[in-house]
């Protein structure tokens, strides 16, 4: 049998402040984006996945990049960022978070990121960013080179990030950071967690209700330990993080989106607000606005293979023997209980229920184009709480 080399003993790998906690829990550590990260704990990916859907999973995501775009006021900082992303940043309410993408001049995605406007008036003008671990160096260079005078980028490299995700996350948070439970989905505020200064947002990457807690590196162990002591909480590794986000239909940078894909091709048009569509003024606006009105030549869709064989990233998608697309993320959906995938298909095949074939190990396996997500999102939106 072939086994992957998952040696993480390489001294060059960076460690998060929670490295020893993971090792103590018996995690299997693997290299990911230059960090030694827990891919799974002894429970295993299927159990960690199910635990998150039913209880509350705890994730160390300290490898992700946290940074601040700082300007003299909100308008100036937001205008500077809007020159780089298609999301409406100027229109963000205090305490609101928006998902958007850093774009290159061709409208391709350099990275996808979260942008939060501080809720406190005294911090206004300091937009908080969370970017992908593997892209932070590229992102920071790109942003720094393009900010106007008076606006600067401040990487927060001494901060950790912990995500608590699942239907019992809010119950758990009530015991440690009561104010955070009042937040609606995609909102954030500074809060004390057992007295520790944190920035807490109601957000995540699993499709479940949950929180992302940012704190100084030195406080990470205390927050992690307090949450692990709760009966509803178990540690969850990157393996289940991937199956959870795939079921939730969320993009993984470098797989489902990259510098060649536009947000419209990636089915992320929802993240581009009305004002930005009318005004343009973001990189690649010509292409993106044209794709919005004329439909892109290809689009990201969900795929349900028939049978049990997973279709992995790189699997060709065909119709009548002709290749019409490619799988960009694929595997087994533990909650769905069957193989699931996402990929790009030519415009003629994007409609739900379109029949296609996935070429797995040389054999054509029937599959159906489906709507995303595979499992319904259960976010604590402001309008349904």
């Amino acid at each position, binding site marked *: *049998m*072939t086994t*992957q080399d*998952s040696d993480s003993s390489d001294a060059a790998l960076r460690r998060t402040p929670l490295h020893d906690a993971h090792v103590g829990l018996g995690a299997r550590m693997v290299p990911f984006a230059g960090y030694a990260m827990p891919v*799974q704990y002894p429970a*295993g*990916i299927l159990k960690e996945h199910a635990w998150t859907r039913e209880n509350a999973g705890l994730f160390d995501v300290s490898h992700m990049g946290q940074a601040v775009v700082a300007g003299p006021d909100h308008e100036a900082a937001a205008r500077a960022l809007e020159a780089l992303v298609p999301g409406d940043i100027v229109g963000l309410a205090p305490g609101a978070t928006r998902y958007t993408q850093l774009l290159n001049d061709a409208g391709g995605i350099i990275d996808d990121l979260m942008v939060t406007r501080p809720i406190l008036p005294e911090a206004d003008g300091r937009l908080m960013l969370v970017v992908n671990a593997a892209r932070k160096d590229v992102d920071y260079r790109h942003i720094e080179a393009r900010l106007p005078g008076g606006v600067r980028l401040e990487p927060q490299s001494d901060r950790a990030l912990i995500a608590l995700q699942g239907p019992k996350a809010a119950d758990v948070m009530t015991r440690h950071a009561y104010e955070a439970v009042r937040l609606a989905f995609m909102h954030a505020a500074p809060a004390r967690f057992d007295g520790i200064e944190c920035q807490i947002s109601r957000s995540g990457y699993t499709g479940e209700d949950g929180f992302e807690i940012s704190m100084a590196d030195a406080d990470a162990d205390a927050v992690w330990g307090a949450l692990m002591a709760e009966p509803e909480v178990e540690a969850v590794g990157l393996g289940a993080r991937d199956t959870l986000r795939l079921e939730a239909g969320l993009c993984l940078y470098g797989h489902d989106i990259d510098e060649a894909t536009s947000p419209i091709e990636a089915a992320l048009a929802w993240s581009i607000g009305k004002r930005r569509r009318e005004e343009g003024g973001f990189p690649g606006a010509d292409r993106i606005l044209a794709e919005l009105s004329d439909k892109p030549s290809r689009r990201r869709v969900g795929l349900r293979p028939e049978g*049990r064989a*997973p279709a992995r990233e790189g699997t060709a998608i065909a119709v009548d023997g002709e290749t019409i697309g490619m799988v960009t993320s694929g595997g087994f959906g533990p909650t769905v209980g069957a*193989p699931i995938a996402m990929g790009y298909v030519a415009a003629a095949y994007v409609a739900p229920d379109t029949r296609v074939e996935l070429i797995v190990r040389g054999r054509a396996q029937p599959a159906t184009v489906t709507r995303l997500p595979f499992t319904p999102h259960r976010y604590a939106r402001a309008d349904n709480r």
Partner: protein
Amino acid sequence: MALRYTKDHEWVRLEGDTATVGISHYAQEQLGDVVYVELPEIGKTVAKGDEAAVVESVKAASEVYAPVSGEVTAINDALEAAPGAVNEEPTGGGWFLKLKVSDPSELDGLMDEAAYKTYLAEIS
């Protein structure tokens, strides 16, 4: 007969001229949760070292190689509905396939339990 192991972490058990094949406890542990097993057609002839099956964990697909040459006489159909048996009983109910062995002397080159343990200690 006792189990024999390959360096690729397959095991084989010879009874008469029939060899039962599966993957080792170490292999299933490295893979993590198994969610799919693709087995060959009965009647297929495989040479030692050929790809005989595919085992897929949540994370990835891996080939399983024939530890000895022979003709496939049986496959473990139960793995289709319950692939987790590979994790739970890798050397028991989680077997993959049976081969009618063409050259029993091919087993001589494989490791016994003690040699495999030493080998695992060397590679980890």
